[in-house]
């Protein structure tokens, strides 16, 4: 038996095992629990890497839960799949890789970051539950299973955002996120139910193979787009995002970034794989483009005036998600038209997909450095911070790299993906490029502000005893810094080996359906 065909189940089982076995291991003391935490997340990373290798070599990976033969989606005599099927194409593997890198960095970071607090076994459990939810969102091929993982990720993140429950703001942020999140989850469930009512199938590929755009399908599309756009934080529904990101512990915020990317992945899966070219007859591509532009611009203009470092970064998340929505929305616009697809559409999708990876890396790193500031000084208020560059040289260095990358300063990786987006979006309308450029400049401006006020400037007397953060926190940040530097130095390799398979898999609706329905499209 080929062990590699069980990888999709393993990548869900390992974090879940990590979550539920944590109380057992925390009986053995702090060290054992920390070793358990780091090793499980490292194992997840290794599995994600194997999945990515396997998908890159062998194409779409299918795993049927509970069947005799794991790769047989349609046993003889069946016309449509009934079991829960995990389906991993290039895009899923790509997202799982990005998510598990961030999860590993966050786990390494949290070992000493959360050392001051009690309740670490609950923290560890929830952390792995969140990881499992995120990976499940990325690799599932079943609509209801998607909802279940969405809820697992949501519940775990509610708990983690409110982890510092002695802080009223944390509870408030968690409650706000919970209300919005529950509403959108219920809308997702109604949409899924409607699709089931129409087609009797819950499998994404199965629904996609039969889908024709009618009244109900349009409603479903609107519901899914709005709900998932809310979960990944687009402009009019983004208000939970800065609150939640600012109040969660830093290691969790770093993972929440990846979870919001999982929701973005869900949105793209719905648009590209579920609806495919039929989406061109609705105005949803334009909705996504407009969502993207609005989130980009309004997010960053709110970020410029913030003076709390994690809240500022939370607003930047909104604007960076806008970039991806813009790139992928332009790709959706070009989806039905082979000429436009070749001209600019595929480049836009590549830019959007590449930006997902870059964003996950540098935004996670930024949140970790903000957490390091909080750990060292005990405050997040930029008005109070200052002169920390000499005290915390490693943090400063890594913050500078991440800030340059997020602002799209050449030669960092953020620039490459932004360049792809700028140039392809220009073909649709120059206005979008202008908006993206202005956003980039304002991003730079606000990070110059953070760098200048937190790290540069004269040393303050109240921070005279500040030391560099402990080793595990530096290690956690260094993992992401290394990823950023590698992405910077080898953009061609990354584009052709990492991004292009993902973008191709996203566009290739026939391949996604064919892997399950046996080419029955």
């Amino acid at each position: 038996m080929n062990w590699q065909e069980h990888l999709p189940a393993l990548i869900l089982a390992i974090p879940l095992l990590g979550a539920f076995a944590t109380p057992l291991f925390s009986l053995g003391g702090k060290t054992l629990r920390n070793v358990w935490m780091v090793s499980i997340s490292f194992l997840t990373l290794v599995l994600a890497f194997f999945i990515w290798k396997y998908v890159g070599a062998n194409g779409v990976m299918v795993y049927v839960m509970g069947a005799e033969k794991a790769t047989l989606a349609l046993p003889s005599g069946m016309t449509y799949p009934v079991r829960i099927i995990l389906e991993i194409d290039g895009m899923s593997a790509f997202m799982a890789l990005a998510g598990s890198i961030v999860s590993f960095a966050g786990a390494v970071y949290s070992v000493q970051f959360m050392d001051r607090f009690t309740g670490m076994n609950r923290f560890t459990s929830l952390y792995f539950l969140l990881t499992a939810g995120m990976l499940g969102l990325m690799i599932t091929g079943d609509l209801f299973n998607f909802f279940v993982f969405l809820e697992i990720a949501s519940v775990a993140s509610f708990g983690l955002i409110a982890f510092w429950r002695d802080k009223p703001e944390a509870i408030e942020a968690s409650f706000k996120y919970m209300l919005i999140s529950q509403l959108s989850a219920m809308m997702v469930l109604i949409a899924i139910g409607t699709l089931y009512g129409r087609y009797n199938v819950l499998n994404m590929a199965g629904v996609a193979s039969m889908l024709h755009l009618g009244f109900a399908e349009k409603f479903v599309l609107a519901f899914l787009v709005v709900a998932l756009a809310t979960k990944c934080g687009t402009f009019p529904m983004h208000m939970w995002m800065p609150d939640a990101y600012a109040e969660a512990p830093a290691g969790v915020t770093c993972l929440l970034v990846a979870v919001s990317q999982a929701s973005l992945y869900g949105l793209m899966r719905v648009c590209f794989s579920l609806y495919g070219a039929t989406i061109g007859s609705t105005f949803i591509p334009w909705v996504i483009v407009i969502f993207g532009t609005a989130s980009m611009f309004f997010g960053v203009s709110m970020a410029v005036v913030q003076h709390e470092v994690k809240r500022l970064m939370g607003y930047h998340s909104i604007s960076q998600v806008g970039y991806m929505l813009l790139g992928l929305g332009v790709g959706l616009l070009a989806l039905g038209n082979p000429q436009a697809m070749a001209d600019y559409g595929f480049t836009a999708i590549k830019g959007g997909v590449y930006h997902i990876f870059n964003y996950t890396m540098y935004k996670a790193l930024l949140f970790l450095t903000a957490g390091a500031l909080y750990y060292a000084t005990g405050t997040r208020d930029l008005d109070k911070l200052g002169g920390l560059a000499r005290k915390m040289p490693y943090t400063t260095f890594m913050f500078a790299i991440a800030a340059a990358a997020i602002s799209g300063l050449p030669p960092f990786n953020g620039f490459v993906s932004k360049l792809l987006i700028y140039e392809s979006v220009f073909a649709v309308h120059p206005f979008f490029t202008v908006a993206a450029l202005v956003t980039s400049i304002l991003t730079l401006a606000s990070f110059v502000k953070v760098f200048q006020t937190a790290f540069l400037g004269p040393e303050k007397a109240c921070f005279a005893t500040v030391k560099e953060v402990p080793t595990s926190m530096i290690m956690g940040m260094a993992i992401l810094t290394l990823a950023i530097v590698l992405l910077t130095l080898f953009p061609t390799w990354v584009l052709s080996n990492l991004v292009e398979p993902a973008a191709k898999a996203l566009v290739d609706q026939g391949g996604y359906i064919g892997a399950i329905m046996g080419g029955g499209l």
Partner: protein
Amino acid sequence: MWNKVFTGFGYWDVISWLIFFFIASFFALWLRSIGRRDYKEGTEQDEIYWSGNPVPEDGAEISVPASSSYWGFRKALEPYYKVLVAMHSGHIRDYVGYYVVTAALIAALILVV
């Protein structure tokens, strides 16, 4: 691995940028190296200029707080920021309202368009 990234309209080459970066940093360091070193250390010439006043011991008194940066930008765009900050009111019902209105708008428009 070291090739250019073609975007369809132009290209991106990380090596040429790194070379440019090294040339630029060479010039910057050269200019820095020909600066004057003949100031007297340990005297007033070592201190920062604080309008002639004695320099405070605590750095907190002479640093610009983050709220003060980009004051002009904020002032110039005050009407815009008034609306935008008012949107982020902190009322959870407002947030749910935006969500519901957006969902209703898109769900209604998708049937028309």
